[in-house]
């Protein structure tokens, strides 16, 4: 198998049984406890049940904790098939980083710039979805300004338009950036909320831009609902 081909990358993404149990323990037991008991993350579940097959999770991105919290909502039997999509130039910088991203986070690293890549990332992710893997995407592309959602990149549109049968699950993450802001290494518990939206399905023929816009507005409206949820009524009303 020639190095740098899609087949080689796919072979790379396969998870041996031992690592599968490690991932299950890390995310469904360890991180779930950390999020629930220490950080105090509140989970707001979707009204519909989780789809069975491959899905694309999309979420807003402000902190390294985001990918960890998304892994904890993946059903146990699919944890080894779910990959966060991360930037090669940041996470592949040192041997230790790329090793832990592969073995402990189960991430796929893609390059953000056109010059240095052998494989088109969209082709690779497309092939992974076809093979039954799930993906975790942060369509903002970077962690950005705390608490502010940037415009979505079109990757999620490309993938969803090629796979009309694969649902897109929007997830809104509120306040996780306070626990571990950009540029810090120490987690200080500050709480937060994870809102899981209902799966979105885009019929064949929906344009890439339409999908990207719909995905972004789905997450924006979840953010709005959460903001209005715990408002105090004015004093003069009984």
């Amino acid at each position, binding site marked *: 198998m020639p190095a740098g081909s899609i087949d080689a990358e796919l072979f790379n993404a396969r998870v041996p049984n031992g690592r599968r149990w490690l991932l299950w323990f890390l995310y469904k037991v360890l991180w779930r406890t950390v999020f629930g008991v220490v950080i105090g993350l509140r989970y707001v579940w979707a009204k519909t049940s989780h789809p069975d097959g491959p899905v694309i999770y999309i979420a807003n991105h402000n902190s390294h904790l985001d990918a960890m919290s998304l892994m904890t909502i993946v059903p146990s039997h699919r944890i080894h098939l779910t990959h966060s999509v991360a930037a090669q130039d940041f996470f592949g910088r040192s041997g230790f980083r790329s090793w832990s991203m592969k073995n402990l986070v189960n991430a796929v690293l893609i390059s953000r710039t056109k010059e240095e890549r052998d494989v088109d990332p969209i082709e690779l992710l497309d092939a992974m979805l076809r093979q039954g893997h799930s993906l975790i995407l942060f369509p903002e592309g970077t962690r950005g300004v705390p608490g502010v959602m940037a415009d979505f990149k079109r990757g999620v549109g490309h993938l969803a338009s090629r796979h009309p049968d694969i649902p897109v699950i929007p997830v809104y993450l509120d306040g996780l950036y306070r626990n571990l*802001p950009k540029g*810090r290494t120490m987690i*200080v*518990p*500050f*709480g937060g909320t994870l809102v899981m939206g209902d799966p979105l399905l885009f019929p064949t023929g929906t344009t890439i831009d339409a999908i990207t816009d719909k995905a972004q507005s789905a997450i924006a409206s979840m953010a709005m609902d959460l903001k209005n949820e*715990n*408002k105090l*009524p004015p*004093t003069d009303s009984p």
Partner: protein
Amino acid sequence: MNKLIEVWDVNAEVQWVILIILCILVFSSVAWNTWNFLKPGKLVKELLVRTRSWWVMCACFIVTTLAHPAVTHIGLAFLSFALLREMYPLLKLDQRERNVVLLCYAVIPVQYTLAYLGMTTLFLAFIPVFMFVVIPFLLVIRGETQGIVRSIGLMPYSLVAWVYGMSHLALLFHLPEIPGFTAGPQGLLLYLIFLVGINDVLQFGWGKTIGQRAVLPKVSPNKTWEGLIGGVLSVTLIAVALRFLTPLEAWEAAITGFCVAVAGFMGDAIASGIKRDLGIKNSGNAIPGHGGYLDRLDGFSAAAAPFFHLIYFFGVTAAG
């Protein structure tokens, strides 16, 4: 007093109070379910959710109280931690002060370890004397003084209100030997939990049934004079009736019950004021029907320290 279950390694008084708690829970569950069956409505739905949460809370409290004292200490420390964690994001502390916030969290294990080791003097001084100076100093040496008055006020306040007060319950395990007192620290702990819980329930109940005039109309429109007075009087009577859990005489138990009820009301009112200023209804969503940890524990954390000192005064100091 005889044990209900002879083989169970828990003293008779505690067994009886657990039976009483169970009876109240069963009675209210049956009552609300019957009411809901006959005439469904919004109020009874809320009561059902609240009662379900009371079942879970009582189970947690009783199991943690009866376990090894170390487990009880850890349980209380967790409650303090949950309160801080719930309030810090709401209080909108400056993100650049997060190292000091981390220190505030670190105070919790230290305070409860001091309690566990029985180092009472240091325990009593650690937060209000040492941390009261150290935390503002750490905020100051950051070199950024804009908005610092707010943080200097909030952080020591949060520690005194939600860690220092609550940790006095752990100190109940280190009371000196009191002659003729058999219920033990577990009995005292359940006595306070029972009084504060029933205080909230009765003030709510009296307020809903005969409440007319609001005590604090601008802070918390739901608290009425009728609810307050009815609650305080009933809790005083209940405190006298349950005094087998304490080393107290009837009149001492009456004073204790009265103070616990009033302190519970005060804690509740303070929390309402804080929440109103922050523009939120509930401090969180951790307990269905009740809100967050602070919504449930506000009275409890305010009543804990007065309760400890009353028990100490009547049981140890006054008894000679």
